[in-house]
């Protein structure tokens, strides 16, 4: 047993840190999030083809690097810290993750190599229930006639849908107990994508309506034998990914605050020298390091052989802590920046908005705690 990062893992983390500090600073984030697409296509292209980050969790047999959750978490932490505006989370942490966990063999070969190369942008719903997308599946109905599927229904919150080449959507099939997963191309008759204008502009959401969308049989991409276990694993890994981003965001809130309080003088000295300020920064650090331990621990578990239930529990723990810590640190950052913390010009507001928005992705902390309680108490 060894809990230290390998040299390769440290290298990946450091590379992510320096690239994102250069390409996703405050000005870049503000420009990207105000642009029409919501992200800088040049940066996204470099991430995909030059840095190879989309290949991190994809198996080598499908053209990926075959690395594990630990490497992914280290990159995501830096993305969350810099509020990277790019369809990385939706493509890698939702779509590629779902494909890997529940996709049939044909679908894996069809989509994963293009994702790993950074040529394909895909997404899936980021619903707010703690029930592993069952809420999303219930809102779309699929019927099969011969070789053709017809889908109708609604999906209220899909991230980066406007940028995606393919949307992976859950649906309920008549006569089937479990959820089914379909790959829906963006340009298809009957699919309506409506952009939602959000307070958190760093991740774009759309609402999706399907009105008799027809798909060939091969576009049903789930492997029925894996769906139950796989959905649980995919949701756990997606929660871990959200937690890693939240951890990075919380760390940046603390770093911004420590830097600001060191320069701001009142009563003839830097406010960072007052215990009333120091103790609150220290409390932020305690919660961040606690969250970091939980996130790295869950990642180490995800990278080893484990059951779906154990993984779900550990990732729920990480995600619960990360959500609470992120919001706490974002609100403390605003408070300890004083008046400027409330302005548009200073960055704490960006993190505050992301902290709130991300707090309910795939279940909020209260919902996940109830899931944890069910596992512990029944």
């Amino acid at each position, binding site marked *: 047993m060894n809990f230290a990062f390998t040299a390769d893992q440290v290298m990946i983390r450091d590379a992510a840190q320096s690239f994102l500090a250069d390409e996703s600073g405050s000005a870049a984030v503000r420009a990207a999030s105000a642009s029409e697409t919501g992200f800088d296509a040049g940066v996204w292209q470099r991430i995909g083809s030059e840095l190879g980050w989309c290949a991190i969790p994809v198996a080598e047999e499908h053209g990926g690097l075959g690395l594990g959750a630990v490497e992914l978490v280290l990159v995501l932490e830096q993305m969350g810290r810099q509020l990277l505006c790019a369809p990385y989370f939706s493509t890698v942490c939702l779509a590629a993750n779902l494909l890997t966990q529940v996709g049939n063999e044909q679908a894996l070969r069809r989509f994963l190599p293009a994702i790993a190369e950074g040529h394909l942008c895909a997404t899936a719903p980021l619903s707010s229930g703690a029930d592993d997308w069952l809420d999303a599946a219930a809102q779309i109905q699929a019927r099969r006639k011969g070789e053709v599927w017809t889908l109708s229904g609604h999906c209220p919150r899909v991230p980066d849908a406007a940028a995606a080449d393919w949307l992976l959507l859950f649906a309920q099939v008549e006569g089937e107990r479990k959820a089914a997963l379909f790959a829906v191309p963006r340009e298809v008759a009957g699919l309506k994508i409506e952009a939602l204008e959000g307070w958190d502009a760093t991740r774009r959401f759309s609402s999706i309506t399907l009105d008799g969308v027809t798909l060939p049989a091969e576009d049903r991409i789930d492997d029925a034998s894996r769906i139950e276990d796989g959905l649980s694993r995919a949701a756990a890994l997606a929660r871990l990914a959200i937690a890693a981003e939240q951890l990075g965001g919380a760390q940046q809130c603390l770093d911004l605050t420590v830097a600001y309080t060191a320069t701001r003088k009142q009563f003839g000295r830097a406010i960072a020298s*007052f215990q009333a300020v*120091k103790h609150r920064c220290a409390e932020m650090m*305690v919660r961040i*390091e606690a969250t970091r331990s939980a996130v790295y621990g869950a990642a180490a578990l995800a990278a080893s052989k484990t059951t779906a239930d154990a993984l779900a529990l550990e990732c729920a*723990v990480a995600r619960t802590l990360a959500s609470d810590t992120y919001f706490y640190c974002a609100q403390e950052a605003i408070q300890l920046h004083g008046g400027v913390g409330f302005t548009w010009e200073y960055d704490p507001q960006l993190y505050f908005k992301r902290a709130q928005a991300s707090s309910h992705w795939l279940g909020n902390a209260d919902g996940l705690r109830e899931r944890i309680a069910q596992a512990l108490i029944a």
Partner: protein
Amino acid sequence: MNLQPSPTDEAFRAEVADWMRRHLKGRFASLLHRGGPGDEEADPALRKEWERELAAGRWTCVGWPAEAGGRGLSIEQQVIFHEEYARAGGPGRMGHIGEGLIGPTLIAFGSEMQKRRFLPGIVAGTEFWAQGYSEPGAGSDLANVQTKCWQEADGSWRVQGQKVWTSLAHESEWIFVLARSEPGSKSRNGLSFLLLPLSQSNVRIQPIRQMSGGSEFNEVFFDGAVAESGHLVGKPGEGWKVAMGLLEFERGVSTLGQQMHFAYEFDLVVKAAQANGASANPQIRQRIAQAWCGLRVMRYNALRMLSGGERPGLKREALIYKYYWSNWHRELGKLAMDVLGPAGDAISDDPRIRPLQQLFFFSRADTIYAGTNEIQLNLIAERGLDMPREPRPAV
């Protein structure tokens, strides 16, 4: 990062578990899950015998080097030992101040004579130690020690003053004391580190009654108490260095054992909630889940602390650890009492209730001893975040 244990470690784990199963029974059965902070008054005589049982199996001082009488176990195996010890319900260690504090200090700073004289008694479980650091005027400001010491013509040392919060002094043969050897010196300068026998007429031990009713701590009064000339550790005036040196070696190997005990307490809380129906209460369920999150955090945080890399004392996860576990433990105590409801208010000997009441009361001390919450937050801000120290008034 790898959570898989090696086959050698697995075999060692089985060996420890097996030994505990074969020995922690019969006349020792009453010690299961007893002792430790908050329960130190549980049968100390039998727990001292248990120390000798451990010693006979070579299970004391497992992390010490072989030449000091230990087993020289790797960090991983020490962790496994402490985990399995606690998992088996091994009693709180009467010898922990000797094994964990003064022993390693002597190994690092002691003379050959001191090592020969004192280490074997610690390893054998025949001599027990108390720690004389805090004083009425030297709590958070530990460097403000006022107890004096001086050397007599025959080379022996005399100690005059008072120590306080001295755990288990009444059950110990020896005490190590930080005292001011240079008259007029201030703060961390001019202190010396001495070893004294407690059974001498010019030492008086007075128990302090705690809010939980028991008396694990004492006041210790020294009125010209004598230490042999050879029982000064380090050089005169270098006592602070010796006293603090230990923190540099402490790798927190026993923390995972401590966590096993926390997990045991957590299970008692869940069982109590299941038994009286509190587990159906949504707020209680939220708090139980929250407590579980803390247990997972502490486990992974300890694994981070124990992994290689930077100097252990400066790692971020090490800086937050004491603050984190003590506050978590205090919260668990409150949760336990809220689960018990009125049953928690009645003084009880029920093994399902008494430990939870002890937890509730004694965990109030957790956030005070070994660096109060407030001192911990200062350390975290100054060492972890490089924030400036509060300006101090000129003396």
